[in-house]
Structure formats: structure tokens, C-alpha cells
């Protein structure tokens, strides 16, 4: 087992701060929030990605670690106290660096839409790059959201996920020490 790096230096304060950032990000979709400052995660995880996973994952979570994040598996297993979940289709959380087919993730059912997956996606940058228009709950008027590293057909792929509402996948985007969230209730159009 390769665990050379510490997790949160102050687990209670830092995971609460990250949780607060996540709550704010999800309630105001597309806004940027700081997370993971001071953390020293293993490659290829960025600070924000690592902070989100340390905060959300515990022994009862089903975390699927995509092959492009596999180098950090030991660190996540040790500090989150979880065993990696092999099957992406039934995972509660998916950590990846490339947008997977959203329909291949757990989307919940109409009786328990909360049983869907939360996708923690690490991208190259947030706040720069191609822009999209966001509209929906949490946004008084349509907002602009830009990110580098999302596929060109992101809006079309998201539309299929949004159409499933109240089912569907929630997306947490992380880059560096910044995070943003796109809950399933948000509609995204090309900006």
C-alpha cells in the first residue's frame, strides 16, 4: 500500500469547510468556491478533488475510482476508510478526470432519486475556457459558466441527464483549489 502523504491536517475543520463550499456550490450552480487549500494530495488528484472526496466518502460510500485516477487509490482508501467500488454503474460516487457517459451511471429511480450517483470530475480549469449558459433553481437569472476540459458536446450530453429529472446525476467539478457544482436540476445551453 502506497500512502506517503497525509490527508487533512485538521480533519474536522477542513472537512466542514469543504462541505460548506459544496453546499454553496450546489445551491448556487456554476459559482466557484475554494476548497482543499493546504492539502497535499497524490497525483493525479488536484487539491479540490481530494478535499471533496475526503469530505464526502466514508466506509458506507460506494466510490468508483476511474482508471485515470487509479494512482491515488491507496491514498483514498486509507484516508477515506473505504474500499473501491469496482462497478461504475452502481457506484454512489465516481471520481474521474474525463466525463463518462452520464447514462452509464446510477440515475436513481422516481421513488428514490437520491440514490443516484454524484460525479466528481476533475477538469483542467474552472472560470476560463468555453462558456455555457445555466438556468434553473438557484439562479435568479441565467448565468454563464466556463470550464476548460469538458467535451465539446457537453450541453447535449447534459440535456439527456437533465431530462431525467427528478432522476439524474449531479456533477461536482474540481480544478486546482476551485470547485463548482452542476446539479441535475440545471439546464445548460451553449453560451
Amino acid at each position, binding site marked *: 500500500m502506497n*500512502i506517503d*502523504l497525509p490527508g487533512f491536517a485538521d480533519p474536522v475543520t477542513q472537512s466542514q469547510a469543504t462541505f460548506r463550499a459544496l453546499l454553496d456550490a450546489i445551491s448556487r450552480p456554476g459559482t466557484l468556491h475554494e476548497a482543499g487549500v493546504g492539502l497535499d494530495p497524490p497525483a493525479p488528484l488536484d487539491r479540490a478533488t481530494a478535499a471533496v472526496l475526503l469530505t464526502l466518502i466514508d466506509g458506507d460510500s460506494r466510490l468508483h475510482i476511474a482508471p485515470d485516477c487509479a494512482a491515488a487509490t491507496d491514498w483514498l482508501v*486509507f484516508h477515506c476508510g473505504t474500499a473501491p467500488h469496482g462497478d461504475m454503474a452502481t457506484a454512489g460516487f465516481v471520481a474521474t478526470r474525463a466525463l463518462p457517459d452520464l447514462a452509464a451511471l446510477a440515475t436513481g429511480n422516481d421513488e428514490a432519486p437520491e440514490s443516484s450517483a454524484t460525479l466528481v470530475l476533475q477538469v483542467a480549469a474552472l472560470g476560463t475556457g468555453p462558456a455555457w449558459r445555466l438556468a434553473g433553481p438557484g439562479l435568479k437569472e441565467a448565468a454563464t459558466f466556463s470550464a476548460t476540459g469538458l467535451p465539446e458536446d457537453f450541453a447535449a450530453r447534459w440535456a439527456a441527464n437533465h431530462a431525467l429529472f427528478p432522476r439524474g446525476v449531479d456533477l461536482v467539478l474540481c480544478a486546482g483549489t476551485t470547485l463548482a457544482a452542476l446539479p441535475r436540476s440545471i439546464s445548460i445551453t451553449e453560451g
Partner: protein
Amino acid sequence: MAATPPLPPSDPATAARQRWMSVLARADAAAIEAHLADAPPLPACTVLRGPESGLVMLRGRAGGGGGPFNLGEMSVTRCTVRSATGFVGHAYIQGRDTARARLAARLDAALQDPSCHDTLERQVIAPLAEAQQAARDAQAARAAATRVQFFTMATMRTS
């Protein structure tokens, strides 16, 4: 609640580590430090996790069926460190003494290092293990003095 999985068969290296970890888990910090005073200094360490305290549910088995029951909760402190020489040391100890957990984890890391294993084993682990065995023997001797043997009941059952 899931049944406890069977422990994997342990190789000699694991068995030796289990032994010194169990000695360290039972030793108090003052005793460890007293023995460490004569030993070479422990390598520098970075803390990977903890020391942090939590509760562990202890389970016992009793009664005719031998079914498990929850005996009660015990406070446990754990710590994981990585020594400058690259060994990861773990410690789980009873109680909330964080300094003791950190010391036990540092010793676990140092004991895995072949360059200082023998010295530490001889100067720290062996005397601690001896003292713990002596304490166990003394207690067993005290208990043996008041032992009651139920010959009558055994005879009645078999007759």
C-alpha cells in the same frame, strides 16, 4: 452486522510485527520512553493520520449458543506515521493518550527498518514484553489461589 472475516494466514514477518505491535499497544508511554532513553533516537516522522480517538464496539461470546453480543464500547486512539526512511507505522491503542499512540506508531515504523530493528527489539520490545508477561503471570497466580473446581456438578452430570 457482518460476521468477522477470518484472519488471513500470517507469514513470519507479519507475525513478528503483530507481536511488537501488541506489546506496544499494552505498554504505557512512560515505560516505552524509559526504555527508549538508552536506545538510538527514532528516525524523524511525518504524521499521515491522527492521532485521533474514537469508539470501537467490543463483542463477546457467551451462553449455550456462543452467539456474539455487544459487550460495550471502548475508546481507541490510532495514529499512522511515515518515517524519513520510508516505512509506514501504525498504532491502535486503548484509551485517549495521543502521545502514546504517536510514540507506538513511530516505533512500529522504526522496527520495520532492518538497520535499527535489532537494537530496538532488544532494548525496548523485549523488556516490555517480559514485564507484561510477568504481570500476567502474577495475576494468574493470584487468581489460581482462589480457584474453585466444580467436581460435584461434573460428577452429577455424568452419572
